[in-house]
């Protein structure tokens, strides 16, 4: 093994033009990666599927020696003095951080058009978006640069680009993975997620990064199952719920056809498919786009020119804050900070923020009820459309609707995975599996069965 996989990753990146003059997937490379891979291979006691494997990491996860910019001018060139727990765990398992990947600024977006460092292009069709906000990580896997990448999820930012790019994308249960070193966007929703070329890749990586971390008080002390072994379990007798709210009449016909084929595949494998209802699904996008900006407006208050990155001086302290944040944040981040500030302001707190929290509780109750009724896993489309053209969606709320099938899992805190289930008009289609809290093992079993039946659509 030695450093072969790392060398191959860099060669593939050059071949695919993954830099800013091409697909714009990569924001930074680890120039020491080959040497690290050699050292990992030579180290005693290391082994397993991640040994000397190159990993791509979304640029909002803190790494030593390589900048962590969050795709923002306000953090351009910023190098963290510490590394995220997920990075430390991957390296302890022998993996090598090879690339930091481009992303929507501060993870706000569904197309990776919002990066201060330029749009990421879809590896299969460069005129299209790869999805977002973890678009660079999904594209790195789809382009064949790496088998495994890390992303982050707040409303679907791993699963949606995974679906667009034809790779596997996992959002773990809230609390399953440490967020220490993940730059905060919306703390009640954020999770580190995994992108993999296969379900097995994603299961292997999640098994390494999951588990309690004393540095993150929201991480939960529940044993981590062997996800790779669990994924081989038969789905015979498994009850798959098909929520009707995720299959509206307006659903893209190509996506509906692929989902129908997936449902048939589950039936053929011996699973039981049952129609169910999650009645508050339609409220997920408005709830999400109140709660997430509200939390973002608080979390991003720390970027003011005092402690991090860009500083634009003005005539006094307040002027410096205003000028730094005005110059440092892009249009979408500014819009969400303003929206979040508005819904938290005293005059509108009850009408927006408090009401959104109460509806969020109803969305979570929907999931608890359906799983309590005997459903093991839910199956839905991951996205309402396939990858769209760069620049095709200009209205902010229309862009937000990309999260319509994914934001619910974040609001409820349950785990979910997007699996390639074929293609429509030459573009990948993702199917989503949603499991109860800490039900990743069953989720992986269903995902593995689906992958085995329908195959991968990645490049």
């Amino acid at each position: 093994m030695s450093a072969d996989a790392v060398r191959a990753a860099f060669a593939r990146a050059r071949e695919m033009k993954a830099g800013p003059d091409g697909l714009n997937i990569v924001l930074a490379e680890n120039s020491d990666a080959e040497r690290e891979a050699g050292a990992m291979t030579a180290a005693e006691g290391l082994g397993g599927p991640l040994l000397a494997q190159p990993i791509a990491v979304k640029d909002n996860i803190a790494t030593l020696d390589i900048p962590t910019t969050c795709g923002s001018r306000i953090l351009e060139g910023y190098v963290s003095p510490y590394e995220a727990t997920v990075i430390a765990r991957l390296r302890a398992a022998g993996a090598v951080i090879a690339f930091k990947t481009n992303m929507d600024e501060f993870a706000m977006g569904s197309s990776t058009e919002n990066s201060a460092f330029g749009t990421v292009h879809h590896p299969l069709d460069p005129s299209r978006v790869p999805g977002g906000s973890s678009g660079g990580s999904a594209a790195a896997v789809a382009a064949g640069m790496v088998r495994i990448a890390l992303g982050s999820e707040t409303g679907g930012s791993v699963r949606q680009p995974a679906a667009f790019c034809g790779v596997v994308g996992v959002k773990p249960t809230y609390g399953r993975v440490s967020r220490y070193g993940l730059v905060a966007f919306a703390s009640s929703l954020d999770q580190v997620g995994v992108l993999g070329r296969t379900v097995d890749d994603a299961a292997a990586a999640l098994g390494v990064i999951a588990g309690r971390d004393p540095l993150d008080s929201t991480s939960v002390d529940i044993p981590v199952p062997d996800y790779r072994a669990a994924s081989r379990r038969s789905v015979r007798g498994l009850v798959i719920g098909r929520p009707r709210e995720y299959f509206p009449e307006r659903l893209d016909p190509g996506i509906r056809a692929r989902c129908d084929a997936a449902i048939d595949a589950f039936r053929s494998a011996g699973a039981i498919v049952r129609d169910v209802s999650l009645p508050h699904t339609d409220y997920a996008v408005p709830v999400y786009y109140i709660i997430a900006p509200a939390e973002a407006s608080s979390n991003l208050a720390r970027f003011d020119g005092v402690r991090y990155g860009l500083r634009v001086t003005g005539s006094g302290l307040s002027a410096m804050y205003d000028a730094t944040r005005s110059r440092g944040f892009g249009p979408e981040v500014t819009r969400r900070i303003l929206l979040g500030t508005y819904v938290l302001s005293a005059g509108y707190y009850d009408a927006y923020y408090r009401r959104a929290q109460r509806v969020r509780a109803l969305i979570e109750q929907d999931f608890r009820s359906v799983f309590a009724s005997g459903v093991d896993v839910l199956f839905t489309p991951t996205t309402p459309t396939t990858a769209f053209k760069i620049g095709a969606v200009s209205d902010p709320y229309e862009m937000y609707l990309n999260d319509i099938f994914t934001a619910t899992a974040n609001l409820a805190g349950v785990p979910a995975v997007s699996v390639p289930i074929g293609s429509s008009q030459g573009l990948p289609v993702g199917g989503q599996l949603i499991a109860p809290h800490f039900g990743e093992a069953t989720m992986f079993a269903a995902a593995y069965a689906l992958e085995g039946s329908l195959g991968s659509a990645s490049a």
Partner: protein
Amino acid sequence: MAITFDDVRQIASLARVGIDETRLPVLAGELSRILDHMAVLAQVDVSASDAGGPGNPEPGAPLRRDAGPPIPLSEALSHFAPDMRGGFFIVPRLATHEDDASEEET
């Protein structure tokens, strides 16, 4: 929900983001349209929702007044450092930040 230019100025002040006056029409329009979509939540029956859960404080929880700059301090700013210039504290430069000085915008 019609967001006025003054609303945008007020929330930008609370958020400490400088907004160019020429951007006000676009921002006011975008925020208004987004908030129009949020209005659907007013129709939801939330009587079955757990109102006391995490992140869902009891009604009547005290809220502070929406007030932007200046930052209220119990003592004058000059009491916090031996010297000030242009609203900033003058402190010894950190050795670890010496390389950053040339990159700061002025």
